[in-house]
């Protein structure tokens, strides 16, 4: 589990993990509706992380705990 920050970029969501200073685009997010948001997220570099599905944040950037499932670190 690590803290990540999700912000809005020019082309969709951008993933940032301060601890390892990894910044990448989020190419796919499992749930992306106002009621249910999060789930499995896939990064441009091939990494896969998991955010507990929750209500969409009202304001971005937004810090949240995420679990690494697969991919580079």
């Amino acid at each position, binding site marked *: 589990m690590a803290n990540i920050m999700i*912000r809005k970029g020019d082309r969709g969501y951008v993933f940032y993990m301060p601890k390892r200073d990894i910044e990448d685009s989020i190419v796919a997010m499992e749930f992306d509706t106002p009621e249910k948001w999060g789930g499995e997220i896939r990064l441009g570099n091939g990494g896969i992380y998991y955010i507990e599905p929750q209500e969409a944040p009202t304001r971005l950037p937004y810090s949240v705990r995420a679990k690494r499932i697969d991919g580079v670190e």
Partner: protein
Amino acid sequence: MGLLNREEAEALIQEVLEVYPEKAKKDRAKHLMVNDKTLESAKKCITSNRKSVPGVMTQRGCAYAGAKGVVWGPFKDIIDISHGPIGCGQYSRGGRRNYYSGIAGVDSFCDMMFSSDFQEKDVVFGGDKKLAKLIDEVESLFPLSKALSVQSECPIGLIGDDIEAVSKKKAVEIGKTIVPVRCEGFRGVSQSLGHHISNDALRDWMLSNRDGKLEPGGPYDVAILGDYNIGGDAWASRILLEEMGLNVVAQWSGDGTVAEIENTPKVKLNLLHCYRSMNYIARHMEEKYGIPWLEYNFFGPTKIAESLREIASHFDDTIKEGAERVIAKYQPAMDAIIAKFKPRLQGKKVMLYVGGLRPRHTVGAYEDLGMEVVGAGYEFAHNDDYDRTIKEMKDATLIYDDATGYELEEFVRQIKPDLVGSGIKEKYAFHKMGVPFRQMHSWDYSGPYHGYDGFAVFARDMDMAVNNPCWTLFKAPWEKPAEATNEDTEALVA
């Protein structure tokens, strides 16, 4: 030797790698690449922010250097205590020329050094008491300081001193903010982690001090982040922003103050010059205070004009007009500078190996002068820096991460650039090889290089280095062919 094509550049990298043992070769190969502009992301071609190979000469610094030397040092009214043995403090004092306005030792402390001078007994019995005593002494000698920071050196982390507890206790006693910075040199692989740690310390101990008490800011309030006022850089940038109608609330950290840090949360836009060392705090402010941030580049008139327009696009028409006015005002002067120096510098090749932003930011300034950057690399950049660099550089140029002394020398020997821009550790090696050199970390004791005023200095300095007559005198007189005339000899040597 002309410019390399892709195959030649790749062959050169292979040739340079040849001397390494198998394991080191495999590791170093990942840090060297030939630029390919079509790449979206640098990740597949270059690895960065990794531990240096033991046994090679790396040019990197440590976390303490990143924290005390880069981020904290330039704040003028903060006393930075180098907590630990004396050497780290002494050798990081004053070398970077972060200018400030103020009186040294009275209200400004940039070029002074405060250290707890650890001895054997402090390592054995702990240094917390010494730190407390030191804070009392500092407070009685320099009462006009606005805050203190404790920059820990390696032994503090190794013996596990509790500098946080001392800082908290003393802060209450003297009534000032005291920030413990856990920037022991052994942390991380380079100074980059020191930047991150200091950003986090600023975030946790200072930035929110006036939360809820701040007056709402004006519509044109901005902060300059990541400009360290080397040779006056931040001043040369600040006047341009003020001329276009913006109100610069804070300078992080060159010539900056505690009050400026605490006032930053009210700005409308954070302007980020050195992305590598201050993006962390910009991201934090974006999340907590909703302040957007923007990277800009104030090297060379082309990039300055681009950046001014981009900054203005975040504001209303008065600022947009202001930006156009500023660009129009300085353009004739810039054209005159380019007309003067471009003929002398046209087509010259430059290789750069510097720190966090210059290898990509200065490319535009060199191109304005008709020069070409044929190789660039960083000591401590991360992947996102290389993503940005790939777009700035031409195809088939060399990109090197954490280059070793041997690699740099070999690249320069083969590519034969007309100018090398790097740090003091490389300077004399290249001078002895007969290659013109500029020390690009602190502008070779010149500057400023930012802004329109800075470009004038930049152009003059590059001309001074490249066209210095001493480079034609490299061959001893008795080694010259006897029958050659003066002009012939010059042609031979050149």
